[in-house]
């Protein structure tokens, strides 16, 4: 008989869980496991391991309750083995109860009950002994085929123009999903899951095209999120450039397009529309509320750290690069005003944006706090949209400054100085949280030869391509930097050496299959890498050294490979 329409089975979908929610679930899991001790004790009393006399109906019923409870909850707390064992015991108990009712509980059935109870017991004990960082959920890295939110580039073609298919192919290698939209009018009709990263319009700015573009721009006005437009014009003339500006173009290139320039421009535009991952610290003793805000901000592309105990705020700020603090004004132990005052006293945090959430937003208190340079006072209850807006606004403004200070200007990745700082920060954080990470050094092979043979502009493109690929394939929380020249440093959080190796191998394969073209010549480029894991290597000095030596080995063994550093080298 088929399932009833109203019965919904728990689905087996694998989803990407936002970090804040994942952590909250893990905390609940640990609480659940802590209770298992009591349950185990109960089971031992009802069905003691050494042969009991006879299992009474009462004890069978009590055991059934326990088995049923565990069967119905284990998997919810990410412990499917407990659900399975509980379910198995339930079935046997049902049989035993039936037999007991008929006054004939057979020794065979009794033995089965004992075995099943012992199994359930064992799985519970295993769960308890497993609350170690090693048992945290397996890290799932996004792969391009499965990424739902792969950035899309739309190409629309004006009425008297044609678009080359080769262009589409090359761009796809870079990890963009290219969609040929057809004529300009079709742009307005395009519907996707998210606004495209960049829109390319190939046009001669004829009367017809210009009207079509204007019509399209009108439809965009209604949407908040609008993607940058790159005009590929039929000629490089003043008139065309003017038209491009008037039609709100963000970039301009003339046909025939220089392949390198196009990739370059796309890269720049793409980075511009992907916000730097603003790191927000939420300080609120209301755990549930803080989690909700955290999730909303994560969805908007920010990194979030949540703190329920304001006393730890300063310690956290010392070990993580926080860009904005969102704090509850009315906390019992230490109110927001005091915390903000403390922060303002510290040189590092004089300009740190602070947003307050308060349930009592009277004008007086706001004025009183003006001298603290509080950026904003949001009154509770604040909607999630208001919150995201308030924080993102500041994020956008601060990102320019951040870029200047922290980023390598060519690739937009972190520069050498900042990367080294991040490594130290990461060691602190991982030590504190008892977690692990992996540091990797990647070096492009024969880079000098690329420069000498094809020119520095091409070398530049190769660098930018790898930078882009790394950004695409690694996670939001991973740290990517450029060490200058052709060397990159990557910090993969919550990954051991094997996990890091796997993802870097994928990137390695992808990069080496990209076909670069220069002067009608085609060529491939590879890189070598050295990988060192924390806490196998526990200081920034030993990590750097180990990664460096592993990289050296990779080069010496013929390049185009990745080597993991081990303690005995």
């Amino acid at each position, binding site marked *: 008989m*088929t399932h*009833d329409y*109203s019965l919904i089975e*728990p*689905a087996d979908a694998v989803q990407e869980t936002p970090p804040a929610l994942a952590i*909250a679930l893990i905390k609940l899991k640990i609480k659940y496991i802590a209770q298992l001790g009591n349950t185990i004790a109960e089971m031992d009393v009802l069905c003691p391991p050494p042969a009991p006399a006879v299992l009474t109906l009462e004890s069978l019923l009590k055991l059934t309750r326990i088995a049923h*409870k565990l069967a119905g*909850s284990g998997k919810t*707390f990410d412990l499917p083995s407990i659900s399975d064992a509980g379910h198995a015991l339930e079935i046997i108990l049902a049989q035993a109860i039936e037999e007991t009712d008929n006054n004939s509980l057979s020794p065979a059935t009794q033995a089965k009950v004992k075995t099943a109870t012992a199994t359930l017991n064992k799985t519970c004990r295993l769960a308890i002994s497993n609350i170690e960082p090693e048992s945290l959920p397996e890290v799932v890295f996004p792969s391009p085929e499965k990424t739902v939110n792969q950035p899309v580039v739309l190409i629309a073609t004006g009425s008297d123009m044609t678009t080359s298919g080769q262009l589409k192919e090359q761009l796809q290698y870079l990890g963009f999903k290219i969609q040929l939209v057809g004529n300009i009018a079709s742009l307005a009709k395009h519907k996707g899951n998210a606004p495209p990263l960049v829109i390319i319009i190939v046009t001669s700015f004829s009367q017809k095209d210009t009207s079509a573009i204007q019509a399209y721009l009108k439809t965009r006005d209604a949407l908040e999120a609008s993607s940058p437009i790159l005009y590929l014009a039929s000629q490089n003339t003043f008139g065309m450039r003017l038209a491009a500006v008037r039609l709100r173009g963000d970039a301009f290139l003339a046909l025939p397009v220089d392949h390198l320039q196009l990739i370059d421009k796309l890269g720049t535009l793409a980075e511009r529309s992907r916000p730097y991952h603003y790191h927000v610290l939420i300080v609120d003793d209301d755990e*549930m509320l803080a989690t909700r805000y955290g999730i909303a901000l994560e969805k908007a592309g920010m990194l979030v750290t949540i703190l329920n105990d304001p006393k730890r705020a300063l310690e956290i700020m010392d070990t993580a690069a926080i860009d904005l603090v969102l704090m509850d004004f009315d906390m019992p132990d230490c109110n927001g005003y005091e915390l903000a005052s403390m922060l303002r006293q510290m040189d590092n945090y004089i300009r740190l944006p602070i947003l307050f959430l308060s349930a009592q937003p009277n004008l007086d208190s706001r004025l009183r706090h003006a001298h603290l340079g509080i950026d904003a006072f949001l009154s509770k209850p604040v909607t999630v949209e208001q919150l995201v807006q308030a924080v993102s606004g500041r994020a956008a403004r601060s990102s320019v400054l951040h870029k200047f200070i922290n980023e390598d200007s060519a690739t937009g990745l972190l520069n050498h100085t900042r990367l080294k700082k991040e490594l130290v920060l990461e060691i602190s954080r991982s030590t504190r949280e008892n977690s692990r990470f992996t540091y990797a050094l990647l070096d492009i092979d024969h880079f000098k030869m690329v420069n000498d043979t094809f020119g520095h502009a091409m070398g530049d493109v190769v660098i930018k391509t790898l930078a882009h690929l790394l950004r695409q394939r690694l996670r939001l929380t991973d740290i990517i930097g450029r060490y200058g020249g052709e060397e990159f440093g990557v910090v993969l959080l919550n990954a051991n050496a094997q996990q890091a190796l796997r993802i870097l191998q994928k990137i390695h394969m992808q990069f080496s299959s990209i076909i670069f073209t220069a002067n009608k010549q085609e060529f491939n480029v590879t890189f070598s890498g050295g990988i060192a894991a924390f806490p196998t290597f526990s200081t920034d000095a030993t990590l750097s050294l180990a990664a460096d030596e592993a990289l050296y080995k990779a080069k010496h063994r013929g390049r185009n490979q990745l080597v993991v550093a081990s303690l005995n080298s």
Partner: protein
Amino acid sequence: MTNPIKRILCVDDEEDILAVVKLALETVGGFETRQCDSGADALAEAGSFHPDIILLDVMMPQMDGLATLKALRQDPATARIPVIFMTAKVQASEVKQYLDLGAAGVVAKPFDPMELSRQVEKLWKQLHAVDATALNDGAAPAAAGRRRLLEEKV
């Protein structure tokens, strides 16, 4: 168009489950929730909280899910609130029993915290779709419409 769900009352004797349900419904689904750890508590809260849906565990000591449902149906203030059972007992015959008693649906335990909101919303939509069907046919209360659909399937 179906009105969105705003408030959900969650009833389960296990504190751990209540905590996960609250987390799942509030953070993933964005609903407002309240938790009760017994049928008696649920009867008291339902009248004042006015939930759009009640998520009800079946196996509870003292007053189990079925008894709670019956009591809810007897109070005019709570009689019309749709009830979704949460249970590991999901044999077709048992599900039929729940539906006959007037439950709107069943969510199987153990549930996936990431899926719970979606499941609740799906049941909510189906519930309103059935109501709409009943309305179009000029039939009377929603319960009758549900039963008819059940019989067709079988």
